């Protein structure tokens, strides 16, 4: 198993930490992992992305041009990364603020309204965990117990009391993700 993921959105949406949580959870599940952030001018302009790779085998390149999965959280990110999904791959987009639907017909497309769900949970900070939940529903590559262990590593100890809330958010994401286009 190798899952090559690009996660992209605005700064502040928790894009970089989503990648870190997936990778740390991967470490807990004895996978090879690699996380590479955008740290250049694009980050300073307000958009952020990171490449997360989780694999059973040694990871060669941490930098990629095509991906198994793209998780895009705003329109500029969809414009940039829709074409970077491998044929047969997966595109997950967050519907808030999107002005158009994905065009590709040769990939699996899922939509998640994570912002709305986070508002209903009275905590917009768990937005990114809802998205992670949606992703893991479609690609169940990590066990929940390892994600919790990953969260314990990523979050400073003073925030550990929020882990149950994050778990709840992941489960919410698993419930609300919708498949828009499914290939056979």
């Amino acid at each position: 198993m190798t899952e090559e993921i690009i996660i992209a959105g605005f700064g502040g949406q928790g894009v970089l930490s989503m990648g870190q949580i997936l990778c740390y959870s991967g470490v807990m599940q004895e996978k090879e992992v690699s996380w590479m952030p955008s740290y250049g001018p694009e980050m300073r302009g307000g958009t952020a992305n990171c490449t997360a790779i989780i694999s059973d085998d040694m990871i060669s390149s941490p930098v990629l041009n095509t991906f198994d999965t793209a998780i895009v959280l705003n329109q500029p990110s969809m414009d940039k990364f829709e074409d970077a999904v491998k044929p047969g791959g997966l595109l997950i987009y967050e519907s808030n603020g999107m002005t158009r639907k994905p065009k590709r017909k040769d990939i699996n497309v899922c939509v998640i309204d994570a912002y709305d769900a986070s508002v209903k949970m009275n905590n917009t900070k768990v937005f990114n965990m809802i998205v992670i939940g949606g992703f893991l529903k479609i690609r169940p590559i990590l066990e929940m117990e390892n994600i919790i262990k990953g969260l314990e590593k990523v979050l400073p100890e003073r925030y550990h009391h929020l882990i149950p809330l994050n778990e709840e958010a992941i489960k919410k994401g698993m419930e609300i993700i919708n498949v828009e286009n499914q290939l056979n």
Partner: protein
Amino acid sequence: MKELRLMKGNEALAEAAIRAGADAYFGYPITPQSEVIEYLMANKPEDRTGMVVLQAESEVAAINMVYGAAGCGKKAVTSSSSPGISLKQEGLSYIAGAELPCVVVNVVRGGPGLGTIQPSQSDYFQSVKGGGHGDYKLIVLAPSSVQESVDYMRLAFDLAFKYRNPVMIQSDGIIGQMMEKVELFEQQKRVEPDYEWATIGKKKDKPATFVTSLQLQAEEQEKVNLRLQKKYREVEKNEVRFEKVQCDDAEYLLTAFGSCARITRKAMEMARAKGYKVGMLRPQTLYPFPTEEFNKMAEQVKGILTVEMNAGQMVEDVKLSVCGKTKVEYFGRFGGMIPSPEEILNALEQKIIGG
């Protein structure tokens, strides 16, 4: 269970410096290297081991603080990125001339000038051929993973003290910024220096200890140079390090170092999947260069492609190593652009396999 952590390359270098028993870090922030000093400041190694961490007023000040600490036999380290490393060149030449140990990290970004903050490998010549003046050499280690960043920090101090020579760890924006899992080594004890050459006070019957890179008499300066050259021959004999991947049956050879070797390895896997017998030789030490190994491989393969994130620097050393025995071509991107595995495979097919 062994301690596994997910760390950025820059953080890993910082943690490894503490664990290697470093006495002091002097530095100045610059992207994409700033996490080294950030991590050290946040971790307060002064409380852990007594290690001093200081943000100097400039890169020049930092390297001269390293010079001073090294003169006292202390384990000192500094880090910067390309433009900052250019500023340190005078200090490096002096430290090499005075034969003192230290570790310098360069998390390379695109140049020339202020350039860009994106990753690059365009400081190969500066590191390997000597960016400062005079006939001196740095021992240059090129990590291509976060784990190697950790391992090479300890190795760098060992080599620096074994040869009394500055050691450069040449990382880059990719290795510095990416996170991978790492296994950290145990905390090493800091040791009080007790070296003949260190200026740590002397007994009455001992002659004075001098730390200098100045010999006004040409005869004396030639002796210094001869001693340095003898040392470099020793380094070339003992310290060459490289990794070979699928070279046994290789008909074509890819070579790259640092982060670029990771991308090139992906290209090699793609080439293998297409049925080409391709191997990879990755120099882990850029100086001393694995000259003999390239020469041996030149007898076996039909061509070598060097892949670099610069305009073609290591390719010169590869050519010198193979002495015209096989074709050597270069492919690269630069100015902060990163080559894709597909581009590398394409270059391999065009320039080596089909060419």
